[in-house]
């Protein structure tokens, strides 16, 4: 794929390198000339363009009409929106993704038809909240903007599922136990597998039943 990223800040740069590592063609645009010169020297294989990408001629220089995706990752929400609008309306880029800097501006991205606004602040806040509030539960991975969650749940002594087999445990719909970590062993469970205290359970669950799953496995939230 050919991906154009606007904004070579921390996010833009990490993303560019990651995508390059996955063998995608990447072009990075930034309006800081010094930074662009430095990146051009250091980043082999990434096309670096100096310019303000809210001007169509800069996007043209990046051959954005050939891009499969345009990612707007600057720290200015108004610039990100304009970049995505230009990419879509003028150059017919199929997919636009943007970093939302201020969650209060998320609505605006939606009205301005940015395909995928990513509200990083809210996502991080959610992760931090989870880390802070649950000792026995840890979110390992979020998929589809957090709708599907892979979690690790530690089974305490007093859990209602201790010494029960999986067959005997009624899990909420849309959740599944993926594996059990018991000391050095990794167990892929079957219906006959029993759960013991201090087991660490890896489960996949839709976000709306996550709390039900936690309640089932440890008895409280």
């Amino acid at each position, binding site marked *: 794929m050919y991906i154009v990223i606007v904004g070579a800040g921390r996010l833009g740069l990490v993303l560019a390198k990651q995508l390059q590592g996955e063998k995608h063609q990447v072009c990075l645009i930034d309006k800081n000339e010094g930074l662009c010169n430095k990146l051009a020297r250091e980043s082999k294989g990434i096309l670096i363009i100096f310019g303000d990408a809210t001007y*169509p001629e800069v996007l043209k220089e990046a051959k954005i009409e050939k891009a499969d995706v345009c990612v707007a990752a600057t720290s200015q*929400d*108004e610039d990100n929106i304009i970049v995505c609008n230009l990419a879509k309306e003028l150059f017919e880029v199929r997919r636009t993704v943007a970093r939302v800097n*201020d969650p209060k501006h998320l609505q605006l991205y939606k*009205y301005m038809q940015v395909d995928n606004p990513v509200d990083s602040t809210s996502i991080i806040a959610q992760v931090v909240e989870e880390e802070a509030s649950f000792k026995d539960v840890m979110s390992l991975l979020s998929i589809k903007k957090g709708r599907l969650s892979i979690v690790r749940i530690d089974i305490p002594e007093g859990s209602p599922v201790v010494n029960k087999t999986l067959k005997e445990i009624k899990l909420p719909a849309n959740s599944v136990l993926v594996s059990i970590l018991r000391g050095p062993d990794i167990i892929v469970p079957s219906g006959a597998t029993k759960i013991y205290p201090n087991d660490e359970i890896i489960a996949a669950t839709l976000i709306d039943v996550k709390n039900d799953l936690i309640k089932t496995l440890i008895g409280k939230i």
Partner: protein
Amino acid sequence: MRYIIIVGCGKTGRSLALELSKTENVVVLDRSIKAMDVLGDDFNGKKIWGDGLDLSVLEEAGLSDADALYLLTNNDNLNLVIGKVAKRKYGTRNVILQVNDIVKKRIFQEEGLTIVNRNYLIVEVLRKCIG
């Protein structure tokens, strides 16, 4: 009296606010309190300190009831984004925005948006000076 919102209290915004507030109901919105201080005591309208990109701030300013919205910040992209949303979501009748770049003025021109380019206006006036 018409209800008018002015976003951006720079030189242009300030002059327009003072002028319009003599006869109309005017609300001025700016990210900086200081910028609005220059309106002075003669200003007969409301001041709102806030971020124009935050739709709840625009709603608080009464965008749904506004007869006109002027976008006069020195940030073209911000003026364009707010202008488009005002038109699309709130159906604001008159949306007037200042855009300094002529290329952007051309691209983003759409029905119902009045885009004003300062340089273009001055050139027009200067040209007319020699008849």
